[in-house]
């Protein structure tokens, strides 16, 4: 991102009447290098991108979809605190809007990182593996979604790991509908459950 920042500063400094045609040529070349460079290295950090929206998909015969229940996910996750008290933490307590609560409940609590994580780590070519310093078999940077769930929930309420009401367990569940593409009318259900527990070794990262 340093390159983009430098380019921006350079461009602003050149702005106004001092932007000669020669400088415009330099700026355009630098800008093309930065924007196409981001595509080459698969950088998806605003304002640079390689436009990976909806690119990730794997062929499969059976499709699964979660059954979304508005009242359930807005009520939130069942949490257990260090003092063994329990309760729900949802959109109202966290003061976040519906679409964020949806992602928090149905995705993050179930260990699913933001889709950008998959974009940045799936089907990496040799060059991208090399610049990320990945060994053979490694998919991408470690996914620490579980830690982030505990950190966000607790820090939102100003709780430290030694606090008696510190959240140490997070639970959620939803029904999943399965069906085959060749006959979508036949569906079968299952329940997916998440049960995250605080790991005391995370204190070091707190």
């Amino acid at each position, binding site marked *: *991102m340093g390159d983009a920042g430098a380019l*921006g500063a350079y*461009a*602003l400094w*050149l*702005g106004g009447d001092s932007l000669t*045609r020669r400088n*415009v040529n330099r*700026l*355009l070349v630098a800008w093309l290098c930065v*924007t*196409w460079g981001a*595509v080459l290295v*698969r950088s*998806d*950090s*605003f*304002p640079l*991108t*390689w*436009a*990976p*929206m*909806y*690119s*990730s*998909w794997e*062929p499969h015969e059976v*499709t699964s*979809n979660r*059954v*979304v*229940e*508005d009242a359930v996910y807005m009520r939130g996750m069942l949490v257990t605190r260090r003092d063994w008290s329990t309760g729900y933490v949802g959109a*109202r*307590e966290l*003061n*976040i*809007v519906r679409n*964020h609560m949806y*992602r*928090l409940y149905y*995705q*993050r609590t179930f260990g699913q*990182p*933001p889709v*950008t994580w998959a*974009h940045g780590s799936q*089907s990496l*070519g040799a060059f991208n593996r090399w610049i990320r310093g990945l060994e053979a078999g490694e998919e991408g940077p470690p996914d620490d979604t579980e830690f982030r769930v505990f*950190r*966000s929930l607790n*820090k*939102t*309420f100003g709780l430290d790991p030694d606090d008696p009401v510190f959240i140490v367990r997070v639970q959620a569940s939803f029904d999943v*509908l399965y069906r085959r*593409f060749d006959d*979508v*009318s036949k*569906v079968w259900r299952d329940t997916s459950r998440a049960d995250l527990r605080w790991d005391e070794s995370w204190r070091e990262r707190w």
Partner: protein
Amino acid sequence: MLRRAWNGFWFTGFSVESLAMLRICFGIGLIFFHVTQFYTFFLLSTAGARFYFMEPVWYFETLGIERQNPVLALAGFALLELATLGMLLGYRTRLSIALVIVLIFYLQGARDSVTGDMHHRYLVPIQMLFFLLLSKCGRAYSIDARRSPRVAEAGRAVPEWEASWPIKAMQVYCASFYFWSVLAKLRVTGWVWFTDPRRIQDLLLSRSLIWGATDAGEPVFNPLPYWLMQQETLCRVIGFSTFVMEAGFPLILFLPSPRARLLFLLGVTFFHVSNTVLAYVGFGLFPIVFFIFFDLENVRRRVASFFRRITSTSS
């Protein structure tokens, strides 16, 4: 020859008035676009908890911004709309555009850091704003030019090359954006993304159930995507036409006929609006960026002469 082609591409085709008209039309579009992107801040309680970001965007991490602040977000949104109005009216144009850029960075960061999903809807607009900032778009059809004869005089003296390159750069970025998305699909998933109808079926099915499902597994709201996902041939056509549209988008840079460009862009607009209706993809107002593919000063002249003709006929 290469030099001539380079100069012919980047430095010809537009006047400072075209640039100013682009600033106005894009500004009007942005006023509404901001609302569609940031209306959720109005749903937050200003007295409620300040959520600790799960995945802060890189510049929030650098600046140490860790929490959602509803009051700041609402104030930022109000200021963003005012700055956009300032930009389109040409009031302290450069300052207004710079403010719009900074505020988009802040508000997009505040929205996307909550759970870490980065949205791509401002990528083309932010590049456009960057080039408008560097351009002399405030030297015509602006309050700045009306207030200062010096600015107006300088506006009349802006040569074609200086007015053209910012618009051409915006066009190149927009075309690249679509082309990159076809490259990304090929890099991550491969040809199967376009050739296998299940890709589109999967997307339509998951989005159709986003509001809930009946016991039979059918959507409780908007049956259209659910119906469409069962039409395999149509899904195959959608997958293939996505490839044609995204891979062929750069050709628009070399289409000389404005009508041909308009036809193509109407098709792309249909694609975005359909995505919004069928799959709840928030790119419905994204076509406001397509103003860059037209010389809007020509459009203004035509509209003005049309109205002159009408008024002279009626009088």
